[in-house]
């Protein structure tokens, strides 16, 4: 058994052992006398290979650390976006109203200007009333 272990150990140190041979080497070492350092080290390795993680949790939908923060951020974004759009629409409507009012004022001003310029035309209404100014009937007599 000892020679078998030595042979496998030599192969192991050279990095030429297969996984099955390494398993066999560990088994032989556990039963053999001597080889205390190798046995101890392989024993330590085995203990390390048995270290398990008991705390980690299987991720599920909504289990992420920042899941609810992300949801809140998305909701906040939509809230802000909706408010901004509404405000934009209101300001657009106000702008349109002011523009229409401004146009009406302009029309009104120009109308007034035009009307005042037409005041001279008022005199034309007397053009056809010469018989009122002069009593033609009396003159004919």
């Amino acid at each position: 058994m000892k020679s078998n272990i030595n042979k496998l150990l030599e192969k192991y140190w050279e990095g030429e052992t297969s996984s099955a041979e390494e398993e066999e080497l560990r088994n032989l070492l556990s039963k053999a006398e001597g080889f205390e350092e190798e046995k101890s080290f392989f024993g330590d390795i085995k203990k390390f290979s048995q270290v398990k993680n008991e705390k980690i949790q299987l991720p599920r939908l909504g289990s992420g650390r920042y899941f609810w923060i992300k949801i809140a951020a998305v909701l906040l974004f939509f809230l802000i976006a909706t408010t901004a759009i509404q405000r934009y629409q209101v300001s657009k409507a106000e702008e349109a109203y002011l523009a229409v009012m401004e146009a009406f004022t302009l029309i009104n001003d120009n109308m007034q200007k035009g009307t005042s310029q037409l005041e001279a035309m008022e005199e034309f209404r007397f053009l056809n009333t010469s018989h009122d100014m002069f009593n033609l009937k009396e003159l004919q007599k």
Partner: protein
Amino acid sequence: MKTFFEAHIWPLKNKLYRMAYLWVKDREVANDVLQSVFEKAWIKRSELQKMENPAGWMMRSVKNESLQHFRMSKRFESLGDRDPEEESREVTDTEDAIQRVFYFMETLPEKQQEIFQLREVEGLAYEEIAAYLELSMDQVKVNLFRARKALREHLTSKRNEKQHQ
């Protein structure tokens, strides 16, 4: 019926935890690193399913997350928030056996540590190690040979110490 994530990714948790432990040298931090990687993997689960080597992707993600942890802790150190216990970056495990394994592994270069752990602790085949760490088979074999050579010297010196006592 188990999902792809539950059947193929979730069972890697202990193997990945021990690798994270090698990289961050602290069980609590290793747990945080792993939880964060699993959450990212959960989000990318449909992409992972299409990958050729999802286990390799997980391994590399754990390594990147561990390095990210170091970058963050270094940033805090530079702000004067240095933890004196972390200065040496040595494992102080409650279990003597694990402490002894790390005592030896810390004498090796990083790549040898990773390959040594994947082979000796996790029992992976050379091909798997090469795929996990994105290395060639030759690189895996050479690094493992060097790590074992160092182990042989380590055990021989321990034997000699005992004989002298």
